[in-house]
């Protein structure tokens, strides 16, 4: 009951937020929600033990796909968003296929290399991708007379997508499929020997997570109006890794917490300007060396301690 009330409160909070905060913060919130989709989809890959270093590239695939379809073919938004996601999923399959023989560090590096290959295609071909300078003039979204060029309508559109994507990812996490992925992570040999096709599940996790990254990319492209290959390079990827590491991947909520906390830290550190990467780098090192489970593990530790105290009967909550 408490849980549903909390969820309702969060939803209402998000719904009325644009009325309360200024336009600048509405833009920040739009980015925040796009990053939530990105980070949460990234976690899906990690549940089976794979860490990818190419996830933001798939965000780029969605972004480029929607830009091309909207700009050159004049497709409507509902078409481009679906196709943007699908394009990411398909290219994700192509990328993950050769990587299925690798694990752990090899997978991480290999995914980086193949992602880089995809990204360099955008750099290399001026037509239609615009080369290193990328694509500009991506049309804003129009749906039945509403102009999504304005921040507030766009905010609600992204909110809708964020709720839908996170809900689906949450369902997958709880489903048998989600459990199978965690089983593969826990004991791959045992998983195989009880009939789980490990390669198929790893590929599926990668492709599905690429789909959602692609949708995040579509939403990003239409907001920025211009994209270039640098938006999706390894530097951006490292920031995604920092969010996810800070939040932790132990539970569904970890990456979401990570994005929230680190975007807050980023905003707070805005006056530090060029020193910010140092701060983020330091945070990354501290978390990996001292709190490898991220904030999520910290919270479950606290919860465990509280549980213990209630169990002892010394204190009731």
């Amino acid at each position: 009951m408490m849980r549903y009330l909390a969820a309702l409160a969060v939803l209402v909070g998000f719904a009325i937020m644009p009325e309360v905060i200024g336009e600048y913060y509405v833009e920040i919130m739009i980015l925040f929600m796009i990053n939530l989709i990105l980070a949460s989809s990234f976690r899906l890959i990690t549940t089976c033990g794979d860490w990818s270093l190419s996830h933001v590239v798939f965000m780029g695939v969605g972004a480029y796909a929607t830009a091309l379809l909207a700009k050159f073919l004049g497709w409507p938004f509902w078409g481009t968003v679906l196709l943007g996601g699908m394009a990411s999923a398909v290219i994700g399959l192509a990328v993950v296929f050769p990587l299925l023989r690798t694990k752990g560090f090899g997978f991480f590096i290999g995914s980086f290399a193949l992602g880089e290959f995809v990204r360099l295609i955008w750099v290399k071909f001026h037509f239609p991708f615009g080369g290193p300078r990328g694509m500009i003039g991506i049309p804003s979204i129009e749906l039945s007379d509403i102009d999504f060029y304005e921040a507030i309508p766009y905010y609600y559109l992204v909110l809708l997508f964020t709720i839908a994507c996170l809900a689906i990812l949450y369902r997958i996490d709880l489903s048998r499929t989600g459990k199978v992925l965690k089983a593969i992570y826990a004991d791959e040999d045992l998983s195989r020997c009880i009939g789980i096709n490990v390669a198929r599940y790893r590929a599926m996790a990668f492709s599905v997570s690429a789909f959602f990254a692609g949708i995040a990319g579509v939403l990003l492209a239409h907001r920025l109006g211009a994209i270039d290959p640098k938006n999706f390079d390894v530097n951006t990827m490292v920031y995604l890794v920092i969010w996810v590491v800070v939040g932790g991947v132990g539970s569904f909520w970890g990456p979401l917490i990570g994005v929230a906390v680190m975007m807050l830290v980023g905003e707070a550190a805005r006056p530090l300007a060029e020193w910010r990467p140092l701060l983020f780098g330091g945070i990354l090192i501290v978390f990996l060396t001292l709190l490898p489970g991220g904030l999520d593990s910290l919270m479950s530790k606290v919860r465990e301690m509280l549980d213990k105290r209630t169990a002892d009967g010394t204190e009731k909550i």
Partner: protein
Amino acid sequence: MAILEVKNLSKNFGGLMANRDLDLEVEEGEIRGVIGPNGAGKTTFFNVISGVYKPSGGTIKFDGTLISNLSPDKIAGLGVVRTFQRVALFPNFTVLENVNIGRHLHARESLFGAVFGMSKQKEIENLEKSRQIVDFLGMTEHQDELASNLPYGLQRALNVAIALATEPRLLMLDEPVAGMNPTETAEMTRIIRLIRDEMGMTVMLVEHDMRTVMNLCDKITVIDFGEKLAEGLPQEIRANKDVIEAYLGAEDIVA
């Protein structure tokens, strides 16, 4: 007809012959023991049959189907499932969840179905079946405990439970009573017999504990230095001079 037919099976690692020209036939409904000294190649034999390793030579047929070059999940799908010598389970799942993951082969779920909850009915059936297996192994009171919190003996029992959940036709147990105390050993022996008698599965096991093997098995195969040294009924094996020498060490080894 034999349910498992192994012919001329060889496996080498680099120059080391772990298995050499092994022949073996297991009849349906049999409990077969595979014994031999440490390092004789018993676990390699299990790994090759279950598809963890590819054989270097020879053929393996299960129920007439050639399985020598299939992957472990395909072999499991055909009904050959093995346990591991080590404790192999999913530590962050509860006992019931562990067994339910073992139902994988009987729970085809599409991603679409997963998201929109369309496989609910199937899941309820699987959970029911998992519960029965947990009951069967006498772990009902532990079913909601995390597997990592179980004592060693129960963890080993859970290994067997996960394998049973796949409903195999041939269950291969790698040292099922290793490290167990006498009470646990007796209980596990009883369960293995029930698996054959009540569930109708064929069982093949590798085991060090001679007493368990002699008590339990219909027929015993002895492996030494990767080769088959002897095969026969327990009393024949017990009396076999070669076996005594290889397995137990010659009486007067230190002159």
